[in-house]
Every structure is written in C-alpha cells, then in structure tokens.
C-alpha cells in the first residue's frame, strides 16, 4: 500500500509525459493516492510502536543499502498532508497555457518525491526522493512562473542546492561517525545504535550543526529565508501550494526523524542557537511581513514566520512540543495551500495582488472570500482549526522546558515572544484580509467572476481537514506521540 502511494503519482507523471491526458490522469492519480492514504489512516495500529507496512528490497548487502519503506505515526501524517495538498493543487491548476503535460507531470513528481521521502526508512532514498521533488519545483517557477520568474527560480535553486549540499555533508558525516559494525542506511538500525551510545558527543555537535543548517535552509530558517517569499510570489499557485505546504516540510520532518533521535547531544548543545534563530523567524520576519504591500509576498513571508513555531517545538524536544510541531506542520501545510490557492485565483482574475489596488472583493466573490477567510483564521491560530491545537501544544511543551518557580529562563522567554508573534500574525493577516476582501470595491473589479463551482471540492477538503484535526486533535496525537515517546525517553 505504501509503495502504491509513492509510485502512483510518479507513474502517472511518466504517463502524462508520454502523452496521457494531463489533467484527467493527474486528478485520478492524486485522488487514488489520497484514497489509499485514507485507508492507511483507517487501518493504522494506534498502540504499536515503530514502523508499519514495511517493505524492503535489498540493493547492496555490502553497504546495507535497501529500498525500505514504511510508516509510523509521524510519517503517516506527513503522507496525509502530502496527498491532501496534492489533490487540491492539481484541482486548482486548471488549464495551463503552455506545455500542459509537463506542468502536471512536474506537480506529480513533487508529490511523489515528497511522499517517497516521508515514507522512506532508508537514509539514501530519504535524501534522493527529496532531490527528485526539488527539480520540478525549480522548473515550475522558471517556466510557468509570473513576475520576475527567472531571477526567482535562480535564487531558490542556488539556495536549496546549497542547503541540500550541506545536508548531504551532514548525512555523510553522520554515516561515517558510526563504527563500521553499526553503519547502515536503515534509520531504525541507526536509532538503535545511537541508543547504545555510538556517536561521541563531539562528533554530534558538528553533525547536528550541519543538519540544522542544511534542513534549516530548506525550511527557510532565519537568516536563510529570503528565497521563500520571492519564489512563492513568482511560482504558479499549484507549485507554491505543493512547495510551501508539503515539500518545505521535508526539512522539519528530517530534524524530527533524524536529528532528534540520532544526534540528541548535538541538539542539546545548539539549543540556544536554534532558539535565537527561530525567534528571528517569529519576531523579525513577523515584522517584515507587516511591512509587505502585496498579498503573495505577505503569504510567502507569513509561511516563513510560522516555521518559527514549529522550530520552537523541535528546539524544546519534549514529547508534548514535538507532537504539537507535527500537528502544526500538518495544519500549516493545509492552511497555506488554501491561502496560496485562493491568492492564485485572484491573481488570475485581477492580474495584481498589490493591496492598494484591491479591496472589497468578498462582495464580488463571496465564496473566495469565505475560503480565504477560513485560511486566514486558521493561520492566526483560531481554536477549531488544527493550527491552534498544534500551537498550543508547542507553547505548553516549550514553556515547561526548564521551568522553575523563581524566574523565566530561555524557553519561557522564547514562549512569551512566540505568543507575541501570534499578535503580530493577527495584525498582518487581518490587515491583508481587510485590504483585499473588505471595504469598498473599486469599479474595475465589479466584473470579476466567482470561483468555478467545482473548486468547492478542494476547498472543502482543505477546510475539512483543518477543522477535523482542530476539533479532534487527539486522533493525531495518539498516532504521533508514541514515536516521540520512544525517541525522547531512549535518549534522556
């Protein structure tokens, strides 16, 4: 089943490349993948630790390299996120003027690559699948983008290539730091080896730093974030949805999957650095977001800012906060996809996303206004949406880290600042909504057309996912928490 979920989009992409009808094939493949994921979700064994649905093909016994896939609670949620966003991204793509087949194939490659990375238990394929997904992202921006698309594509390519390169160095060092008897590409074996104390603390410091910077660049950790807003502003909506919603989360997933269990001592050593950087994401980038004058740039910066909360969960490395981080990864992915989707539809109609030129659009396009409103309030952490559930777990988990009755320490201060970040994000989100959808409508927009009725399906899917997880976060928590319980209790 896991193999089907990984390869369905990839095979469909290949079929489209050789001439299958682009949109129909893509939509069928993404819906099938989503259905299969729902089946996995329904049959997932809650109480079990470790990976389920494991399949393994040995490639090189000498190197202990094998194509091994499987899911545990953590990766299942990532896969669910990927498949939901894929359905929506494909659905929103609509008709493409140039090279339609290549466009849809790229979307499906991103999706398949991301799913493959999330479901790989093998380090090599974990990395390779991510690279597979990155390349079509660059193409989507460079070929089908808008505005200054070539410059944006160059920038994201250079940044992410450097990030991947540093990450690769980190992974190689990690592999090398195990004594030969314990070397393996299998993440499960490595985890076991670490719990026996196989990596010296000194080596962990270097490795973690490389992983942090490598993954950090991929997730737009401050100060390596400036590629993101520009790339998302130029990218076609579907590409922005898939990258900001899914692929970017690979870096966070990597930190949770590899850095925390394999180099815990390194993580502890660099905690202060990470806290400072993530506050850069929350406060500094939050302020930059307030100053934005265009909707797409605002969304791009806001997605950078919200990464700070997830990093806060990762930095505090408590079961509660890391579980919250996973819930927030899911929630942010779905909500930012919704926002980019609607913003893309607006750009298609108005040709501009500058706040000064927009206004009152909810009167002309009530459904777009409603959908965007859901996204806005999810993003600012309104209870009832998944984002709130994730954030609150992160806040509680982080605040608890190192608490004493006589004063605030670094994590308490960071939590307080992060809470102020909630106010900052309320300011820029509501201001953007006000300037785009509320107020008086200018004459030129009175003729705009409402979203196609069929788009109600992906919007309902995204909003439904946010609300289900927001009302019943326990379903997610029950799946994810055991993963971290094993990791975090084994190490400290």
């Amino acid at each position, binding site marked *: 089943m896991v193999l089907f979920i990984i390869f369905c989009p990839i095979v469909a992409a290949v079929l489209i490349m050789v001439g299958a009808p682009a949109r129909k094939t893509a939509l069928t493949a993404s819906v099938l993948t989503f259905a299969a994921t729902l089946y996995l979700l329904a049959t997932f064994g809650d109480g079990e630790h470790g990976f389920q649905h494991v399949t393994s093909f040995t490639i090189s016994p000498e*190197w202990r390299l094998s194509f091994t896939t499987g899911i545990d609670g953590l990766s299942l949620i990532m896969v669910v996120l990927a498949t939901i966003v894929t359905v929506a991204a494909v659905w929103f793509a609509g008709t493409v003027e140039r090279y339609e087949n290549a466009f849809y194939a790229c979307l499906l490659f991103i999706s398949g690559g991301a799913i493959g990375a999330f479901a790989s238990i093998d380090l*090599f394929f974990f*990395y390779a699948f991510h*690279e597979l997904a990155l*390349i079509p992202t*660059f*193409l989507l921006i*460079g070929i089908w983008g808008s505005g200054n698309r070539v410059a944006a*594509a160059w920038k994201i*390519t*250079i*940044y992410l*290539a*450097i990030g*991947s*390169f540093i990450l*690769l160095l980190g992974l*190689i060092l990690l*592999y*090398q730091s195990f004594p030969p008897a314990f070397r393996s590409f299998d993440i499960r074996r490595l985890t076991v080896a670490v719990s026996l104390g196989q990596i010296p603390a000194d080596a962990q410091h270097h490795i973690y730093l490389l992983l942090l910077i490598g993954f950090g660049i991929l997730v737009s950790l401050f*100060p*390596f974030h*400036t590629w993101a807003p520009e790339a998302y502003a130029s990218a076609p909506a579907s590409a922005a949805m898939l990258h900001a919603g899914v692929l970017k989360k690979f870096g966070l997933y990597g930190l949770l999957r590899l850095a925390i269990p394999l180099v815990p001592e390194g993580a502890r050593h660099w905690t202060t650095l990470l806290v400072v950087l993530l506050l850069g994401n929350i406060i*500094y*980038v939050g*302020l*930059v977001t*307030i*100053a934005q004058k265009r909707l797409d740039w605002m969304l791009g910066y806001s997605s950078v800012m919200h990464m700070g909360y997830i990093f806060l969960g990762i930095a505090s490395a408590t*079961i*509660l906060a890391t579980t919250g981080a996973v819930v927030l990864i899911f929630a942010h992915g779905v909500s930012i996809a919704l926002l980019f989707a609607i913003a893309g539809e607006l750009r298609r109609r108005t040709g501009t996303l500058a706040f000064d030129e927009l206004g009152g659009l*909810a*009167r002309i396009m009530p459904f777009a206004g409603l959908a965007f409103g859901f996204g806005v309030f999810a993003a600012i952490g*309104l*209870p*009832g949406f998944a984002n709130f*559930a994730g954030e609150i*777990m992160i*806040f509680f*988990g982080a*605040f*608890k880290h190192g608490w004493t*009755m*006589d004063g605030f320490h670094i994590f308490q201060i960071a*939590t307080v600042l992060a*809470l102020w970040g*909630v*106010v900052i994000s*309320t*300011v820029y989100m*509501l*201001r953007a909504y*006000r300037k785009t959808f*509320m*107020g*008086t409508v200018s004459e030129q927009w009175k003729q705009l057309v409402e979203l196609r009725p069929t788009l109600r399906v992906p919007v309902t899917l995204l909003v439904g996912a946010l609300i289900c997880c927001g009302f019943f*976060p*326990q379903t997610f*928590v029950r799946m994810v*928490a055991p993963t971290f319980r094993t990791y975090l209790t084994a190490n400290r």
Partner: protein
Amino acid sequence: MNLMFPWLILLAPLVSATAITLFTLRWKTSSSAISIAAVLVSFICSCLIFAHRTVAAAEFTWIGISGVFHVPLGLTLDQLSRTMAVLVSGIGAVIHIYSLGYMRDDEGKSRYFAALSLFMFAMLGIVVANNFVMLFIFWELVGFTSYVLIGHWFYRDAAADAANKAFITTRIGDFGFMIGILMVWMATGSLVFAEIAPRMSTIAGHPLLLTIVALLIFCGAVGKSAQFPLHVWLPDAMEGPTPVSALIHAATMVAAGVYMLVRVAFVIQGSPAALLVVAWIGTITAVMAALIATQQDDIKRILAYSTLSQLGYMIMAVGLASNDAAMFHLFTHAFFKALLFLGAGSVIVMLHHEQNIWNMGGLSRKLPITFASFLVGALALIGCPPFSGFFSKDAILALAYERNTAIFAVALFTAFLTAFYVIRMLLIVFFGNARSDIARESHESPPVMIVPLIVLALLATLGGFAFFARSFLSLPVEREIAIFVPALAIAALIAGSGLAIALYRNRASEPVDLELLRHKFYFDELYSSLIHWTQELLAHVSAFVDRWIIDAGAVGGSSRGAWGIGALLRLVQVGNLQAYVFLFGLGVVAIIYFAIFRF
C-alpha cells in the same frame, strides 16, 4: 439525567451554525428559523438544568498524552454557570427574535444568523467550560464571532476597520491571558478549575509569582471586557448591527471578562496587590467612560460608553473581592442594557439608520412603546429606585464605601455623571421638537421588535428585587451602613439629572463643547501614533534590512561564490534554467555516488 444532555446546550447552536453555512446560505428564512430553533433548544436545556440541581455531564479528552498533558472537554454545572447559561441563552433568544425584524431585508441575513448561532455556541462554552484551555478556546471563538458580526457590513470601510480593531485589541489582552494560563499550569500541574483551587497553596509561597499570574489572567478580561487601556475597540464595535451590539457588546460577551474573573477568583483573590490593581482599573474605566459619554452625539456610542462604565463597576467589584456584587450587577445590567440597545435599534430602524441624536427629538409621541421601555432601561441604568440597576449599583457602592474610600468617591461621581448623560440623551432623543424630516415621519416598530422590548423591560424592572434575583444568584449581604450609601447615591442621581435638565431642556444643538471629552481623551490618536512609531517603524526597518542586507548579502555572497554549487554552475554559464536544473540533478547524483559508494 442523561450524561450527554447538558452538552445539548452547546451542540444545538453549533449544529445550527454548521447547517446554515453548509446548506442554507441562500434560503434566508430557513436560516433564521434554524438559528432561532437552536437558541430555543439551548434556552430550554439551560432552564431544565437550572431546575435540576444535581446534573453531571460526560467528559471527553481534547488532547491527552498520558503523564504529560491533559486537556479535557468537560462541563462545570454549578450555581454560577447554570445561572449564567440561563441568562445568556434567554437574552440570546430574545435578541434572535428581535433580529427577525431588524435584519428583515438584509442581504447577508443567513450569514448573520449563522454567526449569531456560532456566538451562542462560543459564549455558552465560556460559561460551562471546566478548564482553562477550554475556556480559552471558547474565549477566542467569541472574539471571532464578534469580529464577523461587527464586520457584518464588511463593504463599509468603518465596519471593516472596527472589526479588525476589535479582534486585534482583544488579542493583545489574550497574549497576557495565555501566559497566565501557562504559568498556572506550570505551578499547579493542572488546567481544570476544580483541581487547581485546592493546589493554589503551591503558589502561595511565591507572592510575586501569584501577583504576576493574577494580573496576567486579568489581562484577558481587560481585553474582552474593554477595560482601560484596551477599551478603544468597544465604541467602534457599534458599527455592527444593533441587535449584535445589544447581545454581544453589552449583555453577554463583554461581561465574559467579569464572569471569567469570578470563575477563577481563587487565583485573583490570593493576591491583595493584584486585587487593588483590578479595582482601580475598573474604577478608572468607569469614570473615564462616563466622562466621554457626556459629549457624544451618536446614540449607540453613548450606550457603548455607558457599557464601558458599567463594566468598570463590575470589575471594581471583582477587585473589591466581592463576586456576588459583580455578578449581581452583571445580571441586572444584561437586562437593562440589552433593553436600551434594542430600544435604540427600534429608533434607528424607524429613522432609516439615523444615529445622531441631534437629528432626532420628540420621539416619545411617535414611538410610545419604544419610549416607555427605553425609559425603564434608562432609569435602571442611572440607578433610580425601584428599578434593578438601583439595587445592584448600590451593592457595589456599599462595598466600595466599606473597603476603599477613594474608590467609593470616584464611583459616586461616576453615578452622578451617569445620571447626567443618560438624562441628556433621553431629553434630546425623545423630548422637544423633532429636528429632522425623518424624525417627524417616524412611527412605531413592528411587533416582532416590540415584544422583546416589553419582555426585557419587565426583567429590567424586576431584576433587582431580592425575591427575584435570589432565585438565581447569591446576593451580597446587606450591612448596617447601607442606609447612608443609597442616600448619597440618590443625591448624586438627582444632581446629575437636574444638571442635565437645566442644560439640555429644549435645546436644538450642543450647548457645551469640551474638546478633550469629545475626542475621547485622544486615546485613538495616541495609540495610532504609538503604533506608527513602534510597530510600523520596526516593520519597515526590518523589511529594509531583509531586502538590502540579508537577502542582498546572501545572494551576493553565493553568486560571488567561493564555494558551493552556485559558483560551480556559474562556470557552466548555460543561462538556460532547464539545462541548469538537469545539470544540478546529475551533479547531485554524482556527488552521492562518489561520496558514499567510493569512499
């Protein structure tokens, strides 16, 4: 009783809001019918639970990681919450019905009723929540529905701005509230009210910590109940439809801050320092809002400032450590203020959305029933015996007299001001000559709006009498000194009314002009310049740094490229992105291959 039965109070409006949003947005009549049915179900359930003294409700887990964190969803059904549930759902029901008339021809009627149902869900959730996180959840949802309803006419710039202002300002209060909740959880290890109360002794050894926690939690109430210095959003919230002003911005939501403080009194009352701050914040708000109200010309804004002022009284009572007095005033205020707003709504609708009192005049003859009920509300508000406001305000004044003379003096002065501005409004709106054509041509509102007025007028009259109120609340104890305080209060009332009559009888324009009060002490101007010089300045500086230093530095650095793939590929100089990306892919594969397999 079935364990799920009490949940019906919450579920009915939630189902209604969902059903309207999903299915009946186009059918306005069905939407309003669903919404009214839901609020009636809530009201009947609340009454049954109120009558049935021992009720238990099922409990669920919202988030639970064993041994680490547990947020239950459970109901508190004590005397306090049962009374409050009846009050909220009862007034809610009256206002739903009134809205049928007020919003009859509105194009967004379905959206309006969906939001109203969601509001009932959220507000009743605050009332029955049994732990801090659940309280906070509903607290935020109430803020959201308030945003939606203030911005109901979102295509008007003023309404859109007011909605944003309300939500953002209350979020600033919630920032403190959340920190307070986090600290309570850390200090006591629980979020459930019933478990925290006996564990408060663990914080008692750290008086400073306790004071900070109490004040942080109070921040939440400052935002939601619009207390100084976060009071600025409430007058602007009057841009919403008038029934919303009555339900949310007078009778229920803004009182949620007071209710919350009473609910967590075990935290607040542990710290005398915090109590003193709370009492003074309430006092300052009461007198400041009353001063501003004396110079306003918009009928709804006058009522909004009077709401601020009365909320100040309630917060004052909380700060003077009397939950009974605070809840008593909350109870009577809910009736008479809802009544006043609905009366004002009746006037406004009949005058085709004219809100300036100087364009009214002589309406007592045109709208007799509206006038009579408005008069009842006004007399209750100024604390004229035997109307309900007299008893509840007297309870607070007596309390202040006993515990803090300075606060008592200010409170008494506020009572004088209240009488002054209310009588001023009454004279200008209902007496003298009609000062505009629409005022001359107006007539009485339809029955669907009049009947709610009469119901509320009855309650505003009866609400203060002990025989009535005691069946809902535990009333504050009467003391020996009590005779002296009401005498002073009535003197203040007579002085205020007398002054208003002397100044405003038969006037056609404002005889007094006090810039400072007319401009609401310049709070809006102060805050916007504050925001301009802090947040906006920081934002623009950050954006500049991001663009010209971080971005330029990083990109410049990588393209000058001493290392990394950027420089490597610059050598290739293809300039064609597809070729570039292809090379990149090849390169990565090659690196992996050489790095791992040929090490």
